[in-house]
Structure formats: C-alpha cells, structure tokens
C-alpha cells in the first residue's frame, strides 16, 4: 500500500510510520484496525486487500465512488458480514471472533435509514435501548433525551412513516447513539439531505467527536470529508489508492488550477492550443471555458498569462485556485463525485 507523507510525497508502508508516531505519543492502540481485508461477491472484488487504522477519538473519512467498497468495509467492521481474508479489530477486539463484545461498543447508522416505519420515533429509540440492554427506564429517558437533542421532540409520538427524509436520517443517527457507543460508524450519513440539514448533522457529529467518540464516516461529499475527517482514506474498486489528511491529499496533486472563460468558443480554442504545452487541460465541458492544471508557483501562472497577452486573447474571467479534494479525486480515480 502506498500513501502520503507530510510533504506530499509517496512513502511505502506509511501505516508503520504513522504507527511509530502514535507509539511515540502513547501506547494506546488504534480504535479501529483493518489489516488486509478482502471480500468477493461472485466475480466482484468488493474489497481487495484493504488496510488502515483509526486512532482513538479521531475521525476517518472513507471516500470513494459508487461501488468502491465503502459499505462492505463498514459491514465487516460492524460484524454484520465476514471478510474472506484479513483481520479487523475494534477497540482491540477481533470483529470475527469477538463479535458479541464488539457490538457492545459500536454504533451503526447504515447507508439507508433503518428504522421501523410503523413505530413512532420514541418507540424506535426505546426498542434500540432495550436491544442494547439498557433498562426500561434508561431506555425511555435516553429516548427522550435523544429526541430533544435531534430536534425531534415534537415528532417523537408520530409514526416514522410521516417523517421527512431529514427527520428519518436524524432518527437513524439517534438510534445509533442510544447506548453511547465509543466507536461510531456512519455510512453516508448526509446523502439526500438539503444543505441546512446537512450542516445540522455535521454540528451533531462534531459534538460527538468532541466528546471523544471515534468515528468512521463514509461519504461521497468531499466537503464533508474535508470538514469532518482528521484523516481520509480514498478507496476505489476495493483498494486503498490514497491516504492522508485533506491538506496532504491536496498537496499531493502539486498543482495550481487556472480557470478562464472566454467571450466565444473560437478564442477559447485559441487559448487552449496556446496553453496546452504549459500544463494539463481539463474540464472543457462548455466550449467557452477552460481549466488548466499547472505546477505550483508564480512562474507557471505568469507564463500562462504572458502567452495569452502576447496572442492578444483576453478572457472574460480569469481565476487561479488551489486544488480541491474534488480535483484530487478526479486525478486519483478518473471520475468526479457528487
């Protein structure tokens, strides 16, 4: 496996490096350890030798396009599916041999809200409390507490089938928290939410993490990974293709992006021919726009602007920006997310 070092270069076996750093700080083992797990469905290799670790109290963003294997990884770590090979542990407990004890300390909110439509919100949370072996009274009070916390107290006595998508999502997350798990797995927690509900959920997740919960989060939203995750593992076709902090991943691309829009397709075409030797042209969906990835540093920007100047091609707009995770993703997987 390859991954990133602090300065943005490659390092083989960086997991060991990271481990060394962790060991220097303390001897606390990772909350989640995944070692070379694989899972195959017929011909499909959903996971093909994946390894990563999540330090206690940190957030790992598992990022990948559709079918990358994110949900399969979450299923294996939450003991609902067994890997074909490899080992994984949560809080030092093997997910296969010690599944029952792993379940005591984890919370799961799967990709699709898994709540009982016919029950009310409060009955759903009561049921989760009982099934995680809280007492009757603890289940009831915890249910009430979570309904308030997730802004569902008014809807607590309504059947879930009357809830909106956002309310259902919040209830689903609340259901994962009933027994105060110390390790939480959220599989695309904000997919399908409007921006406001998404930010609301981010705040709640932020509070959980501040309380010391270890979180593994899968997402297709780079903004979400950028904002919530301490470290990001990018997977594609069942393999880890990059790992590091958001800043490290962005630095890995090592480029700056110049974006320009022209008055007409002809001048855009002229500019494209002119700029092609200076960097990598991408993203020409609209005939009048171009996007050029150049080496980081003022020299390449000056070269590009100078070339346009000499040819007397003046863009309508011209912008220079740093790469986003989206660019990283495009570069790594050859496809866009969102």
């Amino acid at each position, binding site marked *: 496996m390859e991954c990133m070092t602090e300065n943005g270069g490659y390092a083989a076996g960086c997991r060991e490096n990271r481990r060394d750093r962790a060991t220097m700080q303390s001897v606390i083992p990772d909350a989640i350890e995944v070692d070379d797990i694989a899972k195959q469905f017929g011909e499909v290799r959903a996971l093909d030798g994946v390894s990563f670790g999540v330090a206690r109290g940190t957030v790992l963003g598992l990022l990948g396009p559709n079918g990358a294997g994110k949900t399969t990884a979450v299923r294996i770590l939450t003991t609902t599916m067994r890997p074909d090979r490899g080992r994984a542990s949560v809080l030092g407990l093997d997910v296969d041999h010690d599944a029952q004890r792993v379940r005591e300390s984890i919370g799961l909110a799967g990709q699709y809200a898994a709540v009982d439509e016919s*029950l009310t919100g409060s009955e759903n949370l009561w049921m989760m409390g009982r*099934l995680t072996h809280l007492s009757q009274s603890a289940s009831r009070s915890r249910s009430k507490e979570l309904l308030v916390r997730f802004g569902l107290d008014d809807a607590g006595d309504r059947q879930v089938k009357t809830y909106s998508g956002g309310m259902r999502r919040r209830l689903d997350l609340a259901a994962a928290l009933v027994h105060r798990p110390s390790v939480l797995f959220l599989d695309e927690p904000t997919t399908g939410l409007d921006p406001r509900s998404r930010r609301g959920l981010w705040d709640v997740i932020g509070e959980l993490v501040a309380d010391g919960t270890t979180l593994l989060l899968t997402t297709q939203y780079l903004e979400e990974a950028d904002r919530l995750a301490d470290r990001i593992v990018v997977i594609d076709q069942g393999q880890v293709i990059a790992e590091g902090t958001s800043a490290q991943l962005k630095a890995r691309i090592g480029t700056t992006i110049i974006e320009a829009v022209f008055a007409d397709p002809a001048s855009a075409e002229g500019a494209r021919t002119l700029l092609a030797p200076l960097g990598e042209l991408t993203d020409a969906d609209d005939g009048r726009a171009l996007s050029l990835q150049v080496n980081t540093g003022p020299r390449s920007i000056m070269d590009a602007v100078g070339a346009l100047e000499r040819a007397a091609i003046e863009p309508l707009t011209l912008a220079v920006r740093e790469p986003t995770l989206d660019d990283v993703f495009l570069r790594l997987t050859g496809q866009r997310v969102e």
Partner: protein
Amino acid sequence: MVPARARVRRLTLGWTVRDSLTVTKRNLLTLTRNPELVVFATIQPVLFVLMFRYVFGGAIQVPGEDYVNFLMPGIWAQAVVFGAVSTAVGLAEDLQSGLIERFRSLPMAPSAVLVGRTNADLVRDVFVIALMCVVGFLVGFRNQTDALAFLAALLLMLAFGYSMAWVFAVFGLRAPNAETAQAAAFPVMAVLVFASSAFVPTETMPGWLQVFADHQPVTAVVDAVRALVLGGPTASYVVTAVAWIVGIVVVFGTLAVVRYRRVT
C-alpha cells in the same frame, strides 16, 4: 457516560428471552398500527367459509357428519397457514429495509429477531382463530364434544400456526424482497392446504394425491382437531399432529436460525 464495562454481559438465556420479548412487542405494535394486515388475514378464510358452506357444501358428502362441522377445522387450518405467509413477508421487509442489518450489529441475541416475529404472529393467530370461531358459529358450526376438548383443538391449531410461521420464516430469509417472499410462499401453502383433508375427505382424491394428502401436516392437524371437536377416538390423531408440529418447529427453527446468521 455509562461505563462500557457495566454493559459487557454474556448472552444468557435471560437476555435471549428479554430480547425476544422486545422484538415481539415491536412486531405487535406494528400489527396494531396496520390493522389491515389482520383484516386481510381474515377476509380470505371468511370467503372460504361462505363459499364452501353455501356454494360447494351441498355437493360435498361427508360420512355421518354435517358438512359445516367438518369444514370449520379445515378453515382454521387454512387461516393459520395463509396467515403464516405474513411471517415471510415481514422478515423479507425487515431485511430489505436494513432493519435486520442494524439488529445484527447490536449486542442482542440473534435468535430474538425470529422468535419475536413468530411470537407476534402467534398472537395474531389467536385473534384470527377467535374470529373464525365466531364466524363458524354464525354459519351453524356446533362443537360436538366438551369445552375442554374444544379448547385443546384450538390450542393445537395455534401450535400448528406457530410451526408454520417457522416454515415461512425460512422463505422470508431467503427471498430478496417481500413480493418474492409472498410469491414463493403461495404455491407451498396452496398445496399444503388444498391437497389435504381441510375441505374434502382425502378418500375422494385420486390415489397418488391421496397418498400425499394422507401424509402431510395439514391433514394430520385437521384430523386431530376434527377428532377433538366432533368426537370419536382422539389419542393417535393428536399424537401424530403434535409430532408433526414439534418436528416442524425443530427442523425449520434450526434452518431459520442458521440462515439468519448467514444472511448478509
């Protein structure tokens, strides 16, 4: 925060029972929120009562007995077997909705999901059987023995319904969705109910069919229930019926639990 230690407990029988009761309660709540499920479970048997009592009944000869008295044990059996299909549908729905995936990530007893489901279906059967008794009395059914034998007959029928719920639980766990579960269960239950002594004496069937009909659980249970409500020797009928019921629960209970542990 609740210290994690305090919650780390082994899955004892006590926890298994408690978890099963929680799931039972959940399924019963679901049932009361969707009363149409109970209504649908009774419409079909009621239609069959009317059809066989008033349409075909005149043409069906049963030796030494009023046809309506012969018919009602068959109707009860039909009601509990058809009702058990909802076990398959309910489990398939829980699988599809992801609820079972969530259950599997919880420290609960794995068997509780199935036990809680079949328990709730047993409670529903109590309602259905009670209603079908009322319908029976309205169309002229009369118990020919004493109250105790009648009660034993109904309990036997409920036990049979419970065993059928386990059979269809296996269907529900194997089906990719609720519609398939229902479609797969239908032919099985139709063959069990119609190729049996539920509506006509098996002697009227062609030889090969009679062989099957005489050696399948619906006939065994219906014959035992008839013996209990119509009179005559009961012991060997009841023993055969109970053996079928116990055998079905053991075999299909095991199959269902094994299957539940494996579904992903």
